[in-house]
């Protein structure tokens, strides 16, 4: 299964970004293979609709789980319509830490 973590930089050592739509990067991690791929959020600086554009990136990259700080209303609708689960991570660690916390089952699901 693919997990996406919103991040401030690319790669799994990057700090987690708490904003979803305006996250600079999305790090996609394949749970089975352990592969990580970073996608630049080209819409991060946009004036509006950034949450939906980001949700589209989740759909296009086949993420089933998103780990981020918070998700706005419209992105919320898009993610839930797409059947993508959202977990909140606010411990201020790296992408790797967030994935470990998710796998340990300690993250709170918000969607």
């Amino acid at each position, binding site marked *: 299964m693919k997990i996406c973590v919103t991040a401030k930089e690319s790669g799994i050592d990057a700090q987690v970004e708490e904003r979803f739509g305006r996250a600079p990067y999305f790090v996609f991690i394949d749970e089975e293979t352990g592969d990580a791929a970073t996608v630049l959020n080209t819409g991060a600086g946009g004036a*509006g*609709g950034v949450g*939906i554009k980001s*949700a*589209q990136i989740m*759909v296009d990259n086949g993420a089933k789980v998103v780990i981020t700080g918070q998700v706005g209303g419209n992105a919320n609708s898009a993610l839930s*319509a*797409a059947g993508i689960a959202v977990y909140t991570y606010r411990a201020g660690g790296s992408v790797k830490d967030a994935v470990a916390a998710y796998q340990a089952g300690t993250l709170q699901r918000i969607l």
Partner: protein
Amino acid sequence: MQIVIASGKGGTGKSTVAANLAWSRAQEAPVTLVDCDVEEPNLHLFFPGGHTDTPVTRLVPAFDSERCTRCGDCGRFCRFGAIAVLKDRVLFFPEICHSCGGCALVCPNAAITERPISLGRIEERHPLPELRLISGVMNEGEAVGIPVIQAAKEAAAGDAAIILDSSPGTACPVIETVKGSDVCVLVTEATPFGLHDLKLAAEVVSSLGVPACVVINRSCGDEDETEAFCREQGLPVFLRIPFSREIAAVQNRGGLISRDLPDWQAAFAGLYEQVIALAEVQR
């Protein structure tokens, strides 16, 4: 002739000036008053009575799920992020859509048609034989009021004398309202805050090339700074409405001083003449 009433911020008495100006003018000749403060129209409060409504709509995409192959082109095209294309359906967010029509053009499968949705309405009233009041009313929750302002201005277009009441501040709705007007009346209060807002408003109006003049509301005789600014900028002060208990009492009950207090009808008629003269000189 199109006169616009503006102010740097709310609460300066802009609507009061617009309503009194229109009322006194309507005693002599036909005039159309347009409430362009579409988020919070209030001119009708001065003129109770029935009205007729015309809806204001905009076009948004409608998706035909039979024809749609979920190719994603429309979502990639929409720079506002109003469309998300999922595996099994297209999600559309009308409140973010700017009604550009582009998604319908790029859809390779002709799966998108356009349908109207409501943005707001235009209310029309005739409180006096010579007074036509048009109010733009934006639906609650709508993000952009510009099309409602445009519709309200269009409804008045062609009338001989038009007075537009803009929304407070200096943001896009104000610019949309001021655009194309012959002259602007800036309503201010002679306080430091009032002066600050007046400066902003004067700048916007002059950048649009509209000649302006000033009405000082709740004047208490101590307005040297405001006067100095107006002199510097070549903004004539055409009227001072003093701070008085009598005036406050009329206004607090939603009345019009031009109707309820002697002399004020003449004062506003005089203001109207001066404003028109200013527009004509500058043309």
